[in-house]
């Protein structure tokens, strides 16, 4: 008799535990977009490295295309166009593969890619990025070219910290690293491309691989 009561209590306890697990998962699922794939980071890192390498060679071949006028650095339109095209290619490829791996992971988890949480994450990522983008255009127009690479790192870091509230919390630490790296880079003008390659290339790859092993590898 006593045994039966104990058994019933055990069952009840299991139910309560299941209730709590369910509540926790619902709160998490409804407020964070957790389908972001680590592989997206790895691919973005590789494209950023490839982009940095091509930018390095473009700059090397175009050294006569940079001159000073009234103490302001001038760039030939060709050089600007080449660098712009490389940057756009990196951005497009990163976004494309980021989207691909994220929808794949979402499907596996049975979540939707386009929902309230992914929208919140994107909006919160976009706000600092938008401000940073405009700031970079202003730097460019004022001829402060050396500060552009550090600025992109700083604002990207801020964007990740801001967006981390709506996705995997780990992304916050990548944000801190990018931000610190950008701030350091402001003291080493002329090394922008190297800092940029390290921040957008190496850090993304390291972060992506660690996220992949933490969240996706086992499943």
């Amino acid at each position: 008799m006593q045994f039966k009561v104990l058994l019933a209590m055990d069952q009840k306890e299991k139910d309560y535990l299941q209730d709590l697990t369910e509540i926790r998962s619902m709160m998490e699922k409804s407020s964070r977009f957790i389908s972001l794939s680590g592989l997206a980071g790895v691919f973005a890192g590789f494209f950023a490295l490839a982009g940095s390498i091509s930018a390095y060679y473009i700059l090397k071949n175009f050294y006569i295309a940079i001159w000073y006028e009234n103490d302001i650095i001038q760039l030939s339109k060709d050089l600007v166009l080449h660098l712009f095209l490389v940057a756009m290619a990196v951005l497009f490829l990163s976004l494309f593969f980021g989207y691909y791996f994220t929808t794949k992971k979402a499907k596996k988890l049975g979540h939707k890619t386009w929902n309230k949480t992914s929208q919140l994450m994107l909006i919160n990522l976009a706000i600092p990025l938008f401000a940073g983008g405009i700031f970079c255009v202003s730097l460019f127009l004022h001829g402060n070219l050396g500060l552009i690479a550090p600025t992109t790192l700083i604002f990207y870091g801020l964007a990740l910290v801001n967006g981390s509230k709506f996705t995997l919390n780990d992304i916050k630490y990548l944000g801190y690293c990018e931000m610190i790296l950008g701030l350091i880079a402001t003291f080493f003008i002329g090394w922008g491309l190297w800092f940029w390659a390290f921040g957008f290339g190496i850090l993304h790859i390291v972060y992506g691989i660690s996220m992949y092993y933490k969240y996706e590898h086992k499943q």
Partner: protein
Amino acid sequence: MKDFISQLNKSFESRIRLGIMSVLMVNESIDFLSLKEMLDASDGNIASHVAALEKAEYLTIEKKFVGKKTSTTYTITPLGREAFNQHLNALEQLLKR
């Protein structure tokens, strides 16, 4: 121990209701379609549980027109927040015993 069980709120006994309240606790407000997607339940099922929670004054329902379609959003009330927190505390105490 009996004390804690009496503190468990009968309004939250179903899984769907627990789910609805959990989602509302961490979101300012949520629309019907998002809620349905997250809970993975039928329209009627969600509607009846939402109605019960509204009757207990744990949430408010707001209907708006977005173009030609109606959009229904739910918001938790302070009373609902307090009741759910109490329920959570009771669950925790029961497991800690």
